[in-house]
Every structure is written in C-alpha cells, then in structure tokens.
C-alpha cells in the first residue's frame, strides 16, 4: 500500500536538510516515515485487521436485522428460504472456499518469492470470484423473473413474466458488462501478443480468463437450475394429476393469499401451486418452466398442518425475507467485486515481481480481506439457504 511513499516525497519537497533520512534509501519499498520494514509491515497488518473489524461491524447491521425478523416470524423465513436454491448455494460455498485456499497459497508464494505461483494463485482466485458472481447472477435473475423481490415490489404470486426464450432478460442485462469486458480483454490480449509484451499478455490473459469464468458460472448456474426444475417438474406433475378435480376450476389470476384464506391450511400451498399448473396448461413453455419451479420448491416440502397461511406469502412476510436476502448477499457481492479490483492491482504488481521475502505486505493484506469475505459467506449460506 505504501511502497511508493519514498518517491512521492522525493518529488514533493526540497531535498535539502533531510540527509539524515537517506539511510534507508536502499530499500525502495520502505516509506520515508517508517524506521524499518518490520515497522512498516506491522503497521499495515494492524491497519488491515482494524479494517476487517469495521467490515465485521458493517455486516453486523444486516445480521442484526436478520436475527430480529427471524426471531419475530420464523415461519416466514422457513417458507421463503425454500425459494433459494440450496445446491447452488453449496456450490458457491465450495467455490469461495477454494478461492480462499488459492489466496492463502498465493500469500505463501509471495513470501517465498515464487512469482509464477503467485500469479497463478491470483488468477485462480479471480476466476473463482467470477464464477461465484456468475452463479449469483443466475440466482438473482431467476428470482426477479418470478417476482421474488424486496418487500415493496414482492409479488406473492408471479405475474405472467415477460416472454423470453430460454434466457432471462435480466440475466442478459447483467451480463452486458462482463461481456464487454470479455471482448475488451480478448482484444487486449491479441494486441499485447502481437506486440510481444509478455508481461502484459500475462495480465490480459488472466483478465480474459476471469471474464470467461463469469460466463462459466452462469452456465453452471443454469445447468443446476435446469436439473432442479426437471426433477421437480416430474413431482409437480404427479401432484397436479392427483388434485386435478379440485383445482381445475381455479384461475391463475387468483393470488395465493386470497386463495389460501378460503382453504384449510394444510392444503393451501399445494393447492395454490396447482393453480399455477392448471392455469397454464395451454400456454407457452417458458411459463411452465417457472411455475414448475414454484411448485417444485414449495409443494413437496410442505408438511401437512404446517402453519402456512396468507400472512406469510406477502410483501411484509416473505418479502421482508427477500429484502434481507438481497441486502446481505448484494453487499457481499459488492465486496467480492471490490476484492477482485484490488486483486487485479496485486496481479499487476506481481507480474513486476515486486513481492519477496521482505516485502509481501499487500498480498497478505488483500488475502486477509478475501478470507473475511469468505468468512461472511460461511455464515450467510446456512442462515439464508438451509432453513427448514
């Protein structure tokens, strides 16, 4: 962080009168106001730990909101968490854990002055981060499509979604920036390759791979989702056949809560779920897919007699859960993006071979930050995805 202080000060003031401070001029990485590298490293280390403290307290606000509303309405959380894809969450957890491993390994490489190892570790970490974001993009856009939005815009029952073939328009919109980056990095790689600038090629190649990893993440996310949908569509079909007589007369426009009010609690969900299916038998395929998903997520899991009523599936119920979900995971994702930016900075410096036994502070500091981001996800995953 502070390796350039010496040069900055050299330019910033008259050189006279400071002869006494040239004694450590032979250490280019040592800032002028520190006595020795150890003091500089300790300061940086303490600084980053304190920064992590602020991060912990920053997230504590959302954890506090989570515990407040969960303790107040546990049934809402149980209901709403069923809409989260557990498999994707677990996959993402593993991806982040792996990125933590590569980051820790990277720190080790920096300490041992293994330049190539460090670059590789940083590239892997960046790639994992991009995969994580890709999967998250799939998760988010899928929810937006079916109306699982923050409380104010939450739709208890999905409206007829925008017609689209296969891919969600939200997902396409979200992928514009990574797409542009992908193309830009590819062009850059070609240019540097033509120029023969090996160092730049290395950087451009890593960035290209990172951008590509985002799309890998999207791909994996979609596959998971497809698998989930097809396996549960089968189950949904069985249920709808079973209840065909009861639900045939219902229209899809009836909202789930209105509907549930008039029904015995134990059958509320499966009934309303069947509404979606029976109401859409004649419509297009994408619609079916989404509704099959809804069915798959809540119908098979409802225990008969569970206290699931109209009060849960509404703006101020499940909607609140999704508010908290988006805040927590959204802020976490922002931290991932921030981490990626500093990691690119590290990558550039690593290719210049600036880190060695005596000076590896920045890699260490970024590593600590990255592990904290991982740490927060370790708690987010069970708290949001695994509630039963």
């Amino acid at each position, binding site marked *: 962080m502070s390796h350039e202080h010496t040069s900055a000060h050299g330019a910033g003031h008259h050189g006279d009168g400071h002869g006494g401070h040239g004694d450590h001029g032979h250490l280019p990485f040592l800032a002028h106001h520190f006595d020795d590298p150890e003091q500089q490293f300790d300061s940086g280390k*303490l600084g980053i730990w304190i920064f992590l403290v602020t991060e912990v307290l920053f997230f504590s606000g959302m954890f506090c909101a989570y515990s407040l509303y969960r303790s107040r309405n546990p049934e809402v959380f149980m209901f709403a968490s069923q809409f989260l894809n557990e498999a994707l969450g677990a996959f993402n957890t593993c991806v982040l854990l792996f990125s933590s491993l590569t980051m820790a390994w990277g720190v080790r490489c920096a300490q041992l002055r293994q330049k190539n190892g460090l670059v590789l570790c940083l590239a892997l970490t960046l790639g994992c981060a991009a995969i994580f974001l890709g999967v998250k993009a799939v998760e988010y856009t899928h929810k937006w499509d079916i109306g699982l939005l923050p409380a104010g815009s939450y739709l208890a029952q999905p409206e007829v979604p925008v017609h689209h073939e296969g891919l969600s328009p939200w997902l396409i919109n979200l992928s514009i920036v990574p797409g542009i980056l992908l193309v830009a990095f590819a062009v850059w790689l070609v240019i540097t390759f033509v120029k023969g600038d090996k160092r730049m090629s290395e950087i451009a190649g890593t960035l290209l791979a990172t951008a590509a990893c985002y799309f890998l993440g999207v791909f994996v996310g979609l596959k998971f989702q497809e698998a989930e949908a097809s396996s549960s569509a089968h189950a949904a079909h069985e249920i709808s056949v079973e209840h065909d007589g009861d639900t045939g007369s219902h229209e899809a426009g009836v909202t789930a809560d209105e509907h549930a009010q008039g029904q015995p609690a134990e059958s509320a969900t499966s009934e309303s779920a069947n509404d979606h299916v029976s109401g859409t038998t004649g419509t297009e395929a994408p619609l079916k897919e989404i509704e099959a998903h809804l069915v798959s997520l809540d119908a098979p899991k409802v225990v008969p007699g569970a206290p699931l009523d109209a009060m849960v599936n509404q703006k101020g119920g499940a909607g609140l859960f999704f508010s908290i979900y988006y805040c927590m995971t959204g802020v976490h994702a922002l931290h991932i993006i921030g981490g990626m930016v500093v990691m690119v900075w590290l990558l550039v410096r690593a290719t210049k071979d600036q880190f060695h036994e005596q000076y590896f502070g920045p890699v260490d500091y970024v590593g600590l930050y990255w592990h904290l981001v991982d740490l927060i996800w370790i708690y987010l995953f069970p708290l949001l995805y695994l509630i039963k």
Partner: protein
Amino acid sequence: MSAVAESPTHSHSQVTENYLFNTKGFLSWALTLDHKRIGLMYLVGVMSSFLVGGLLALLIRAELFTPGELFLNNKQFNQVFTLHGAVMVFLFIIPSVPAALGNFLVPVMLGAKDVAFPRLNLCSFYLWVGGAIFFLCALFYTGLDTGWTFYTPYSSSSEFGTMGPVVWATMGVFILGFSSIFTGLNFIVTINTMRPPGMAWFKMPLFLWATYSTSIIQVLATPVLGITVLLLAAERVLKIGIFDPHLNGDPVTYQHFFWFYSHPAVYIMILPGMGIISELMSVHSHKSIFGYRFIAYSSVAIAIFGFLVWGHHMFTAGMAEVTTVVFSALTFSVSIPSAIKVFNWLATMYKGTVYLNTPMCYALNFLFLFTIGGLTGLWLGALSTDRALHDTYFVVAHFHYVMMGGTLVAFVGGLFHWWPKMTGKMFNDLWGKISCLLVFIGFNMTFLPQFVLGSRGMPRRYARYLEEFQVLHQISTAGAFVLGAGLFVALGVLIHSLMRGRRAPNNPWGAATLEWQCTSPPPFYNFASAPSVTDPYDYLPLKYISEEEGWVYISPTKSTDPQAHPEIAKS
C-alpha cells in the same frame, strides 16, 4: 487555506524551514501527504462548516424570538434545524478535534515523522471534502426536513420522491463515515506502532489517550452508521421494508441501529475535547497532571461504556421495560469516568502556578459548562424524570452544554493553545480572554433558560410555541447572539494574529510534551531524529527565558538541544 499558505509579509524574516513554506504552490498543498498540512486544511474545512452551522443556529434562535411566525414558515424552520443539526454533527463536531487538531498533533506529540498511512490520511480528507460538498448540496438543494436523525418512517415515507433528499443526504453521511473511519484507523495504527523508543503507553500525553479512545469508537461504531444509512437508502429506493411499518417493518429497529452509532459518536465528540482539557489544565497550571492513570483509564472506559448505553435515547420510544431499565443502569456507569476526569482536572490546579491566559480561560470555561452538561445528564438517565423531560428543551440544553460547552469550547481553547505551534504567530491575549468571557456569558444565557423551558414542558423541534414560554425563549435568543459575537471575536483574534502577530517562540506556554520541542511552526519532518522522550508533564527542567519570550528545556543531557535550535542542527 490561502490565508495561511500565502501570508508572505512575515515569512521572509524566518530563516528556518517549516512545513508551511517548505514547498509552494496550490498543488503542494492539495496533494500534500504531510499530516500537518492535512490538519490545517481540515481546520479550515471544519471552521467553515461551523460558520454555516452557527449561522443556521442564529436563524433558529431569531425565528423563536416570537411564538408565531417571524420570517420562517414551518417547513423552512424544520429544514433549518435539520441543516443545523446535520452540519454541526457530521461536518463540524465529529471531525473537529480528531481530524483537525488530531492530525496536526498526534505524530508530533508522538515524536513520529508522520501518521502511519499518509495517503490514507489525504484520502480521508478528500472524502470529507467530497462528502461535505455532496451533503451540503443535497441538504440545501432538496430541503431535507427529517431532523439529523433521519427517523423512519418519516424519512422513508415523507412526501419527497424515491430519490429524494434522504437518499442524497444518507449517501453524504456514508462518505463522511468513511472519512471518519480512515482517520480513526490511521491514529490507532500510528499510536500503536510509531511511538519512539522510550514512549511507553503511560508516558503518552493524555491527548493521545483521548485520541486513541476516540479512534476505537470511530472504527467500531461508524461502520454501523454506514450500514444503517445504506439500509435507509435501500428502504427508499427498493422499499425493503425492514424499517417501514407499512411493510411489517419496525421503526424502533431503525432507532436501535442509528443510536448504536450515534451514542458512541457523542463520545467521538467529547473525548478529544477532554483530551485537550487534560493538556491545557496541566500546562497552564504549570503542574503535573493529577491522577494521570485515572484520566487515561477513564478515557478508555468511556469509549467502551459508550457502546452500552445507546438505549437511553429511546426511553420513551416504545422499548421493552427490561431493556429500558438495563440501559438506564448502564447509562449511569458512564457518568463515573467523566466525574473522575473533572475532579482530577480540578485537583491539577492545586498548588500549581495558574497562568490565566486565553487557553486556560477556555479550559476553565469548559470545566464550568461541562459540569453543568454532565450533571444534567442525571435527570435524563433517571427513568422517571426522563419520561417528563425526554424530547423537551431540557434535552436540547443538556446536549448543547456537553457538545458545545464541552467540545466546542475545548476546541477553541485547544486552537488558541496550539495556534503558536501551528502558525508560528502569537495572538492578542487580552482579546482572546474577552472572546472567552463573551462565549461564557452568551452560552449560559442561551442554554440555562432552556432547562427551565424543558421542565415546564416545551417540546423540542417546535417552530411555534405557546405564549407562556416567550420570555425564556427571548432570553435564550439574546444569549445566542452574544455567543455568536464572542466566537466572531475569537475568529478575529486568530486572523489578526496571522496578519500582525509577533513571532511565536518554540515553547510559549512552558509545556513539556514533545510538540513543543520542535520549532514553531515545526519543520516538514517534525524531528531531525527521534526525540528523547521525557515525562510529558514534568515541568521541572523548563525555564522561562525572557529574551526568547518562551520556555527552554534546561537539562543535564544535551539530547534535546538540536531541536531547540534547529538551524544549528541543520548546518
């Protein structure tokens, strides 16, 4: 800034290099990494904010001269008091002592060359500038009227559009919060890792203890403010509903979040002021501080206890009974360390030599006002009286006694105290004392009647009031203008000293802390080599030399002499 940077008339006579003139030009200031220049820039910034906030305060008091409408309608009045509160809290008091004086003093007092992260320091300053401009523009342009606390659901459902003033203002607060966190982080690391050999924890000046405690709060509490305002912005933009009762959210949750930061923030405001007073009382009584360790520990204790008492802002807000009682008990725990400090300051004067100059007058003024502020806290901490006094003028008077009578007076006193060191100029002591007297009279005249207003039932944040309260309000308004005049006199004294002040000696007050061992103003590097650390409150070796009009260290060891005569050391 330019007034300080470019006062050319007197600089020619000074041959020694100092941080003010070692480099010239706008960019040498704008891009400086020197903690002293950053401190000065902060000083100009917070003083400008104080001017804005102070004029708004006069506007409020003037409007309240009559029970009915004088020149502000209800909406304007609400906007003015919101602006006053927000500007004073976020732009003035929180950065005043830590960022302005602290930046200047912490490394010099430590005998270090700079803070640990100079670029983070500059970044923090520009975040503050950016945040302040953003915040002020947002407030003035959009007319925020929620009060500085942004209580939901008023702030989340007032008539403004989705991207209304609340969103802009909260973004401003968010940026300012980062500035505050970076300053705090920097100081903690600096004090931890950059103390010179020999400066043990208990050889640090008490100002550093106070700054350290303040920084702990800044680092621990400010992030929670960050997430709170972020959630509030999300509440407006995305309607996330967790603070909104219309979506089954709960407004009291917002209050918990907000006060988890904003109560410790009260100690961000007052602790550095207490640190200044510890220095001032000792130096100007020419007497080693009484009960050093008690004062040091009480600073840390206040910082920690400060996190346990936020609920006392919500005694009538619908909290559960058990929480209310617990918070009341914890609230009283904070009063003890504050009392310890006051008694120790008082005892410091005992058998000393009290120099009644301007900084000391401000310190005594502080002692008087802060005692009132602290003692009136008893009424508000006690549950039954709080139920009558909460949200009345009693509270207004109480926190103005603490924050303004405390922090502001300490800040001005500290400014006078370190002014010779910062600028190399002495000020007119008589006029300084006159300003102190005016501040004292004006302050008490403004806020003493407000205690009575409060106990008689006058609620706060009222644009109009019943006629029975008029006389007290008028006394208060008159006092506010006396107070304003006093502060303008103080400003005049300082500006006059820049123009006409005689050159300051290295140690005009006879203080023993390290910053007085370097020249006034200090050179760019503060100390040619790490200074030898002595007891910061040992006045025995200091002798007054009348040719220098200042104090000089006479000690058997010669180690400090190069600092006393830096031009010799340089050659």
